[in-house]
């Protein structure tokens, strides 16, 4: 399996756990899961990328799309990621300024909805 996407509720947020590789082939599965959550009224999302081995700009596009969707509902989309190879693509594209990125799920759950300067 190239990509596994599961979600659970915790601390008033929906945690989307992604395992595998997010690319042009697998990204639609992630997009679908995020869209389903938003459609079901879940607007406070944490996407856990800790176990993602690879992510390209298609994956970034899905995350940006998700962020736009939850923002229209005054929601939030936080990311969990510590891997340098994944963080690199966020840095190249300047998206580290757009997404609050945390080291752990607990840290993401403890963070306020709207990113403050300290989160960036």
């Amino acid at each position, binding site marked *: 399996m190239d990509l596994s996407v599961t979600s659970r509720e915790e601390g008033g947020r929906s945690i989307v756990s992604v395992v595998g*590789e997010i690319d*042009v*082939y697998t990204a639609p599965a992630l997009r679908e899961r995020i869209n389903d959550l938003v459609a079901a009224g879940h607007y406070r999302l944490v996407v856990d990328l800790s176990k993602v081995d690879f992510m*390209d*700009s*298609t994956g970034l596009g899905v995350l940006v799309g998700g962020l736009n969707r939850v923002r229209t509902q005054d929601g939030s989309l936080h990311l969990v990621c510590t891997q340098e190879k994944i963080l*690199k693509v966020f840095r*190249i594209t300047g998206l580290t300024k757009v997404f609050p990125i945390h080291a752990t799920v607990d840290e993401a759950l403890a963070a306020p909805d709207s990113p403050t300067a300290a989160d960036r």
Partner: protein
Amino acid sequence: MPPVVLTFSPAAEHVRTARLVVVAVARRAGVGEARLEDVRLAVGEICARAVSRCASSTQATSPVAVVPVTTALGVAGSAMSPAGSSGPLAPPETVAAAHGSTPWRIRVEIQDAGPLVRVMVTDPAGAVELPDDPVTMAVAEALADTLSITRAQSDGCETVELGWQLA
């Protein structure tokens, strides 16, 4: 090292295979472990771009035959170029082959050309404007040591060449 050539039908599921092949060849050619993730991501971006270009092309059929092979995925090693030679960047004869309605193929060639490992990705989609293209190209450019693009020629083929310095 003789060049390695991979061709695949423009399907998203083959992009991962292309990444794996190119990274394996680049590792063998001597690209350091620290740069291999850059190779993986940049090549993934450009191959995904080629697939998207083919999907978005308004051309009903391929303007050129790109290595017609019978299997969905072909990997071929070639001993045509002597080791260390820096071959021309023009798409080889297999790309600009017979005209007709043969299935589209994306061609990836990896050359160990002296100080550089070069990866050339050629698709036959013609002139296509992808909305995300600036992001894709910016990511690839940030990851590669060299990047050049040969826009769609009369044969409809466009080639993106990525290069990484050998340590």
